[in-house]
């Protein structure tokens, strides 16, 4: 399974755009990139998933360059409630397989 590397922590202010980058140098052809969000005392929650180029939903955007060795989660105009841990996963989506989370990125949003 592809290993991922992401910053341990990031700080931001309300209203700013936050970009969290994840490195996955040995991503395989059939792997997808998935991001999760976790608030304290809760289980992680799926945010967004993509294979290449750009994916956007009501919560975030995911940018994936052509070589797919990294990806960037973009959170537009963050608020205090976006303070959470964000996890990047790389996994094959075609069948049963283990989903391995890393240590994630602790995002802290301040006023």
């Amino acid at each position, binding site marked *: 399974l592809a290993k991922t590397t992401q910053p341990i922590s990031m700080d931001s202010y309300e209203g700013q755009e936050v970009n969290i980058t994840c490195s996955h140098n040995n991503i395989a052809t059939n792997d997808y990139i998935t991001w999760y969000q976790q608030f304290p005392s809760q289980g*992680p929650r799926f945010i967004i998933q993509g294979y290449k180029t750009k994916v956007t939903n009501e919560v975030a955007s995911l940018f994936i360059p052509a070589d797919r060795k990294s990806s960037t989660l973009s959170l537009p105009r963050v608020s205090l409630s976006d303070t959470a841990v964000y996890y990047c996963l790389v996994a094959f*989506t075609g069948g049963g*397989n283990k*989903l391995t*989370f890393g240590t994630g990125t602790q995002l802290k949003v301040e006023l």
Partner: protein
Amino acid sequence: DVKVTQSSRYLVKRTGEKVFLECVQDMDHENMFWYRQDPGLGLRLIYFSYDVKMKEKGDIPEGYSVSREKKERFSLILESASTNQTSMYLCASSGRGRGANTEAFFGQGTRLTVV
């Protein structure tokens, strides 16, 4: 509303006890997972199952076993609880098919304390 339900929110057990953590999902998902979460270590996969009666070791299976007799239920068993198994335990499930199996739904977690 999709649901993954863990049997207990908080649990206190004694060293050496056999402990069962139960997880039930109502989404007819094929894949189910057990993780533990400790400060500074993130989420670590203990075991997962991709079908009834099937199980695969995750990254830290030592000291644990699992059971999946029915599709909706995945049990984590601590054969002889030890203090280093004090942790938050999280269960998750996901479907089968492109994209679906990496969109996992998590339960609220069981905070287990072994004394």
